[in-house]
């Protein structure tokens, strides 16, 4: 017999809210990248404006989580879930910031994008989006295996980022790319690399929800 229906329902609502927050951040990433690739300045401005919605989600989720703590006094897996969520929403909020940053880069460039460099950034973007998606799926199901998958994938993103730097350096030496454009493309790639790191942070909090350990350190 389940006694704590209110607590269980509140936790489910909290997880759904986090998933919605992450959906919004992800949609901003996609639109931010689209705006950058296609020099869509209007869309870029819309993405930047939508970042405040992600911030609002963070506040609302934090309020609900704190309310669960003082009202329901959760223990064991419930406590790990609530405290883990309180930590990982900061990473989702940062992901939202980076989506806005990517969109903002659009405003600095008004010419055609470099066709040789963009595909590599797009590949990074695709992998990173999947990392964020998988981490949120890992949260919804509190699934450690999905979290581990996210952490493993991060090496791939770092490799792609390093390859991009090398390629960019070479193209700059060969005078095949406009230095101004190179800087902004590299910044966009760096934002994706950081989003990957935040997905890893989320994954580490999911492992904490399962084991009580964060980066192998018991927090209790």
């Amino acid at each position, binding site marked *: 017999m389940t*006694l*704590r229906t209110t*607590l269980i329902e509140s936790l489910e609502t909290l997880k759904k809210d986090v998933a919605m927050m992450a959906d919004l951040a992800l949609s901003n990433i996609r639109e931010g990248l689209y705006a950058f690739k296609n020099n869509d300045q209007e869309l870029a401005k819309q993405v930047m404006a939508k970042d405040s919605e992600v911030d609002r989600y963070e506040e609302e989720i934090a309020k609900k989580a704190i309310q669960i703590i003082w009202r329901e006094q959760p*223990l*064991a*897996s419930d*406590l790990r879930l609530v405290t883990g969520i309180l930590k990982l929403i900061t990473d989702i909020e940062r992901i939202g910031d980076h989506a806005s940053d990517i969109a903002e880069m659009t405003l600095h460039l008004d010419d055609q994008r470099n066709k040789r460099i963009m595909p590599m950034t797009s590949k990074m973007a695709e992998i990173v989006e999947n990392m964020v998606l998988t981490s949120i799926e890992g949260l919804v199901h509190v699934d450690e295996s999905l979290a581990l998958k996210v952490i493993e994938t991060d090496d791939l993103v770092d490799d792609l980022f390093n390859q991009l730097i090398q390629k960019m350096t070479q193209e700059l030496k060969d005078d095949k790319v406009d230095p101004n454009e190179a800087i902004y493309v590299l910044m966009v790639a760096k934002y994706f690399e950081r989003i990957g790191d935040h997905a890893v942070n989320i994954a580490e909090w999911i492992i904490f929800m399962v*084991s*009580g350990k964060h980066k192998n350190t018991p927090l*209790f």
Partner: protein
Amino acid sequence: MNDSIVFNVKNLNLFYGEKQALKNIEIPIYKNQITALIGPSGCGKSTFLRALNRMNDLIDECHLDGKINYYDQDIYDQTMDVIGLRTHVGMVFQKPNPFPMSIFDNIAYGPRCQGIKDKQKLKEIVDEALKQAALYDEVKDRLKESALSLSGGQQQRLCIARTIAMKPDVILMDEPTSALDPVATLKIEDLVVELKKNYTIIIVTHNMQQAARIADKTAFFLMGELIEYGDTSTLFSTPQYKKTEDYITGRFG
């Protein structure tokens, strides 16, 4: 942290007539630690507590097998001095139960029974016990008043002082705050934490937050079995067994 074991319980089975109330309990109780016993009503936690100073002897048809060693003494050995055991292992009950006499006489009652007649000596014992029970400042000017005039929380601290006056080694507490308001409860909790410097404390509680706040070790009982025992921080954050997890998260009751 003192690692010496005060009680070592081995393979304890306890029966009320045909009904088995405790099944194969194995647990060490450590000196100068607070051990909380938690679990739903009827799980055997109070029965276990009362087995530690043979309070169950007073119940007809209660019998047990297995061993409870108090240091190196088997407390159910026929040669055991039960009165002596209860002097070393005192008890505080759910409902404050002061005797209908003065505050002073409540505390002096035990020492007097032990033959202490010297008034100065008795005064020293009473004052010391009241101080340790964090009650002295509140009652020092009215020691001759009836203990029944005290508030519920004060009465419970008086009962703790009465136990302390016997200079025990272990204090057993059976839901000592369940009849008290939140402020009186917190005072008792602070007191219990303070007392562990000098005493070993075993406390039965239905309040899991209370166990989490004050206990070093926690034991979870269910249907006469000891399901899980360990550091309180581990038991309430990352319990090892699903039954413990289900109980402390309210998935069953």
